[in-house]
């Protein structure tokens, strides 16, 4: 399959130079590849929240559920429970998943549900024109924090690690080849996979220069080690712009999944006629 076949007629409204283009192109390439490798495209369902990131589903000719702000994961979880054959991929923003929908993110990791979440982490609210987000550094001067944000940012990867996510990685919108690699592995991973993408917002938080200087790819790390993953993840806390920022796959383990527990039920779903007699049978216990 040619990745170009996954385009739609929708007019792209992202700003020129937006980091979302890399995510879009990397994902198209990965899905086309996977289709060639026996993971048919019709089995993929994309779920997005609300924000600049979310427009991605309009730009991909793939099944999608364009959901609401912060709510990708409940939709995605149910999709996976409804049909375990589906490959479910969420696109979410830092405001989307870390502010509005943080409860769902923690629970998705806790359940280790077999879905993937790509976090378009531009560390600013773009569509609402420039307010601080949960990953903006302290002192960030946004429209809602003109004197600078008081809070320190949260480290979403650290949160995911302790919450039970079984695949954790970070990419950068300037490294499309790495993004492809990380996305593909995340989608093929069985369990909750979380990819933080440092996705630059050229209009409200242009960090290209800083990221180009400070990012590096970790190599030779033992991704099955919780301690090692924690150490790498904690080496950059989103606050400082003068520190090395690790990229790559930090953690990947096999762990029991929420969706496994439901597989058996589906086999016993009775038809309407059987339901009738089963109900009458059940009612005997109530006499």
């Amino acid at each position, binding site marked *: 399959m040619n990745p170009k076949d996954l385009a739609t007629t929708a007019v792209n409204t992202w700003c020129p130079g937006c980091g979302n283009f890399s995510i879009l192109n990397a994902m198209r390439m990965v899905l086309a590849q996977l289709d060639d490798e026996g993971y048919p495209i019709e089995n993929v369902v994309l779920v997005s929240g609300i924000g600049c990131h979310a427009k991605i589903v*309009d730009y991909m000719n793939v099944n*999608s559920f*364009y959901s609401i702000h912060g709510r990708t994961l*409940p939709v995605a979880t*149910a999709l996976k429970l*409804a*049909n375990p*054959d589906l490959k479910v991929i969420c696109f979410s923003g830092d405001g989307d998943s870390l502010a509005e929908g943080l409860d769902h993110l923690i629970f998705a990791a806790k359940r280790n549900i077999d879905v993937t979440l790509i976090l378009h982490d531009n560390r600013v609210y773009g569509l609402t024109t420039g307010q601080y987000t949960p990953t903006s550094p302290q002192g960030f001067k946004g429209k809602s924090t003109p004197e600078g944000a008081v809070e320190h940012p949260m480290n979403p990867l650290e949160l995911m690690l302790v919450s039970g996510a079984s695949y954790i990685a970070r990419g950068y919108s300037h490294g499309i080849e790495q993004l492809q690699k990380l996305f593909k592995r995340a989608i093929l991973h069985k369990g909750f996979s979380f990819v933080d993408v440092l996705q630059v917002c050229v209009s409200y938080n242009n960090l290209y220069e800083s990221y180009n200087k400070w990012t590096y790819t970790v190599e030779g790390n033992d991704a099955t080690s919780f301690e090692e993953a924690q150490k790498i993840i904690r080496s950059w806390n989103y606050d400082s712009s003068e520190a090395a920022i690790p990229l790559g796959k930090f953690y990947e383990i096999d762990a029991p999944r929420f969706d496994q527990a439901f597989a058996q039920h589906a086999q*016993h779903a009775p038809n309407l006629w059987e339901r009738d007699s089963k109900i009458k049978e059940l009612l005997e216990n109530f006499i």
Partner: protein
Amino acid sequence: MENFSTLIGGIAGDGINEAGITVSRLYSHLGYHIYMYYDYPSLIRGGHNFSLVRASRQEIAAHTDRIDILIALNQETVEKHKSRLKEKSFVIYDADKVKLDDAKHKGCGLTITSILKEAEAPSVMKNSCIIGGYCKVVGIEWSVLEEILKKHIPKKLELNLQVARQGYDQAEGFCRIDRPVDKQDQKPHPLITGNQAVSLGLIKAGLGAYVAYPMTPSSSVLDFMAGNAGHFGLKVVHPENEIAVMLMAQGFAYAGVKAAVGTSGGGFCLMTEGLSLAGMAEMPIVVVMSQRTGPSTGIPTYTAQGDLHFILNAGQGEFPRFIVAPGDAEEAYYWSGVALNLAWKFQVPSFILVDKTISESLYSFNIDLAGELKDQAAQAPLLWNGQQEYKRYHYTDTGVSPLAFPPQKGQVIKANSYVHDESGITTEDARIAREVSNKFCQKGQSLAQDLEAYETVKVFGDKNSKTALICWGSNKGVCLELALKLGLRMIQVLAISPFPEKKLKSALQEVERLFCVECNSTGQLARLAGFYGIQTHGRILKYDGRPFSLEDLESELESYPESELERALA
């Protein structure tokens, strides 16, 4: 005997609900119709709980304040409920613990605590013991109780039977009622709560998934679904909050699995965001909404009908919805199935609007009276025929677009919370925005048309009476019984949305005095009917968390000031 009311009371943890169910089963086995109201505070142990069991030769769905027998497991029960006793009523009580003033004439004191102690039986078995005595007093044969205990008591049956028999034997010699219980020829019906009826109705119509966060008084739907998931291939999920609940239901719907959610007012507040999404994305979902006393936390374990307008208007923007308010177990069963079918036929949110009274009261359930769902084929969802390119929001004459579920080779299925074109791509185009709204209106009209074939308004009692009661939901039982007694017309509105204006107006022909009966402080149905030019002349409202008893409603009606009524009519 025609009608017989028994109240059993004690503290939470005494198993008062279960004891009430056992008393209900006794009468049910003898062929009586049962209605049991269960009253309990929001705590786990202590406090005062009571079950009020009414047995009747007629079909009933209302309780009476006055009782024939009081079963008191503690002193508080006597103090709280002695005013309910009639001249010939009497009290069965634990003589080791409870003191009764007029014990000689009114009492049947059994040494429950001593019997249990001697038998080395745990305290919860006092129910079996006292119900043993109860059977003797009201003239129910030992074999009936024995059969019921054998069927329904899973643990320590022998010991239960032993203490029950001792209670039964000890009651010999105490006063008995004048006309003992006689056997009816009716076969016993199952005894189920409204929530169980709702659950079974959904399951029957093909429910595939149930998603809920526990909230009284809806929680027992979740418990029932989870407990029976294996039998019916149900996927039951209890997620982090009601926001997730509502979104998960739509993930299931998108994938083609029929899903329902359940909650009460506070939980539903969290669902409204997702409800509006269901409206825009045209996701079929069913909401079991069981009202309790509000606003906010209110009185969690008590009833109300305060959320009609909330449900009617919940969610930003305009989109069609189906709302039905069943009035008893049979209607809860039948209409829950209808709600699921209509949600899928028209791709709209469907509400089953009940309250604590329906959800947790126990009813004799006659499945044959409930009615069969219409031909499932005619009610089946409209599916994509596989011919032309698939468009999720394809325009049709009915406003209903064919459904398809992934995977569909060569096709793309796009659901969207934004205004979207036929293929589900976001747009801000003015023409399409208007078309989308028109599509929703069209769906609403198609739904209303479909409902013409249903009995969305019911008329009972004296259909020629110029005085009528109008009610919805749980007040059906009390209104119906009183209308029959007083020779009034009684009108029950089942469908709240789309509003059955024509049917209601025809049911109201020649009515001169119309009283609405509701468990809220403003007359919510009366206000809704007012939008359609239907005027009520009197509002009989109860908003203390307790359902109307027969006596409540009768005295309210009798004491309704004539002058006020005349002023209303003028």
